[in-house]
Structure formats: structure tokens, C-alpha cells
């Protein structure tokens, strides 16, 4: 749920990075955090286990500049990818304005990708959202790994509705900002459309 503050002249939106465990959602946020000017970002918060697995969420507030005198602020969240944290994932989707599905390109993770995407649709539907009507992008991460599936196959299975998609190597930053910009743009365009 976006928050338009006419008093402080701010547009606030929430973007959620979704995907199976170890697909690179947190890595996306870490890269964005590391490469953003200090004045454009807040503190990155990671509620993680002792083994650095996301327990509840990661959170990164980011300012993307001004439109007509309004500061655009995006709150980026990740969900915990592991299957048994489903209750937490549902909570984080509340009030979402845009979604990035991060798929793991490795052939052996295809089933986990499909399960996570199904889970995203189900959990959004429970909150009254339809993934096909939300600002939504897909990122195929880990494209540098030798066991990654062909792009055509990933597209067919994980992006049948042909939303904007990006190939990424999040550890090196490849595709990270392209994905963020695309989803942020979709969110603002949707807000404009709905006004």
C-alpha cells in the first residue's frame, strides 16, 4: 500500500523480493545497499538466523529521486525463502505495491522455483491481490553458474505471462539495478494509472 504524504511531499512504496531459499534475494538488497549513495539510503536491516539465512525479512529504505517536487521512497523487503517460513512470507506481502520474483537459474532448483512462484500466487491471493494485476518483474539469478538452465526454459516455466525479465548475477551486481528500476517504474506507472 503506497503512502502519499502531501505534507512532507513524499511518495512511499513497498517492493517485495520473493523466491526460493538461497536464490539471492538478500544478495540483491546487499548489492543495492553497497552501491547506493549514503544520502539515498537508510540502514539495511536483516533479521537472519546465526547462519545468515533470512528468518523474517530484510529491509532497505531507498530514495530514488524526485518527481515534480515529491521525493520517491521505496521500501525494499525480502521474504524468507525456506518453505517452512510461509507464515512470515504472508505477513511481508501485506500492503505490497510491487513484486520481484528472483528465480534460481540452476537446473536442480527448478522445482523449488516453481513451488515458490505457486506459493507467491497463493499468498497474494489470500491478501486479495492478483499477481497478474500487480507491478511485477522476474529476475533469473546466478546466470554465471555452469549448471544454469537455458533462458528459454526458465522463461517458459517461470514467466509465462511475459512480464519484464532480467538475467542476473547478483553477487556481481549484474542485472540488480535493472530489475529494481523496472519494478519501481511499474509501481509508479500503476500509481499514476490508478489516480
Amino acid at each position, binding site marked *: 500500500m503506497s503512502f502519499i504524504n502531501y505534507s512532507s511531499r513524499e511518495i512511499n512504496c513497498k517492493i517485495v523480493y520473493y523466491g526460493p531459499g538461497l536464490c539471492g534475494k538478500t544478495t540483491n538488497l546487499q548489492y543495492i545497499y553497497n552501491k547506493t549513495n549514503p544520502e539515498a539510503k537508510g540502514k539495511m536491516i536483516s533479521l537472519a538466523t546465526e547462519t545468515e539465512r533470512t528468518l523474517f525479512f530484510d529491509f532497505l529504505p531507498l530514495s530514488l529521486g524526485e518527481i515534480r517536487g515529491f521525493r520517491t521512497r521505496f521500501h525494499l523487503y525480502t521474504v524468507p525463502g525456506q518453505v517452512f517460513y510461509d507464515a512470515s512470507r504472508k505477513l511481508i506481502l501485506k500492503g505490497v*505495491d510491487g513484486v520481484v520474483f528472483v528465480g534460481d537459474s540452476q537446473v536442480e532448483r527448478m522445482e523449488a522455483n516453481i513451488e515458490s512462484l505457486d506459493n507467491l500466487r497463493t499468498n497474494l491471493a489470500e491478501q486479495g491481490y492478483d499477481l497478474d494485476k500487480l507491478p511485477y518483474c522476474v529476475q533469473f539469478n546466478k546466470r554465471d553458474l555452469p549448471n544454469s538452465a537455458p533462458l528459454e526454459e526458465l522463461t517458459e516455466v517461470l514467466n509465462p505471462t511475459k512480464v519484464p525479465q532480467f538475467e542476473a548475477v547478483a553477487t556481481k551486481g549484474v542485472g540488480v539495478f535493472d530489475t529494481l528500476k523496472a519494478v519501481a517504474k511499474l509501481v509508479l506507472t500503476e500509481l499514476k494509472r490508478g489516480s
Partner: protein
Amino acid sequence: MSNQLVMYEEELQQLTAICDVLQRDSNAKAVLVIDKNGQAIAQSGEVEHLDVTSLSSLTAGNVAATGGIASLLAEKEFAGQFHEGEKTNVHISIVGARVILLVLFDERSSLGLVRLRVRKAAAELTIVLEALVKKSEAGNQPSVFAEITDDDIDNLFND
């Protein structure tokens, strides 16, 4: 996007005024009004050294998790929470099912006093928030998005 929250100058002043009174009357360090999705709405007191953005997000996460526990236990919600620290205590309450009222206080105050003052402030906040929702839903306020063009959005993402 139907449940978009919009804040106008007039209502923000009213909310801030309520927070100011609550902060003063409860001897609190700081008072924050936070949207359930983690956006800070209004604040009062010693907030200059606080990371309000992070605090708001984590508080909303906390309330959401507690709400999840409530529904597992077939409770509607747990309306209030209290965290006791060595120096700072935190009182969290849900107001009007829509926003969170966070009060930070120390030994200058007490849980009893905070609870008492929060009850009064919550009733006042509810009235302002209901009026705000009606105003926003009436749709007769000028929207920033009416002025924004597709080019404006494109320009934001030009390197």
C-alpha cells in the same frame, strides 16, 4: 491500490498535536504513529537520534508477527504490547485497526501512566484517521499523480 494511504497537511498537524500532548502528559521520550505497513506517519519528542524509518518497519513487522500469533490462537488481535528494557521501555498499541502507536519511555514515566494516556490519545487519533480516510476516499483532493507524466517517471530512471 484501493487502500492507498494519503496524508494531508491539516491531518498531519492534528495527529502531531495529539502525539505532542501524549508525549508531554505521559512523560514519554518519544511518540510515533506508524502505518501498519511500516511507514512512519507522525512523531513527537526526542526523535532526532532515532532511526525512525527502521524503527517503524521493525515495529510493523513485530505487530504483524504478533497478529499472526493471535490468529493462530483464534484471537482477533493482541491490541497492546510492552517491552521492558534497562533504560528504555516500549509500549505498542494498535489504533483504529489501521495504525500503530509507539511510545518510548524511561524511568521518568511508568507503564500505568503510559497506558492511561495512550487510551485517551488512541480515541482522538481514531477520529482524525477516520476523517482522513473519508477525505482520501472522497477523491476530490488534487492528486500528485494527475500532474506526473510518463516522461517524468522515465526521467527518474535515466542514468
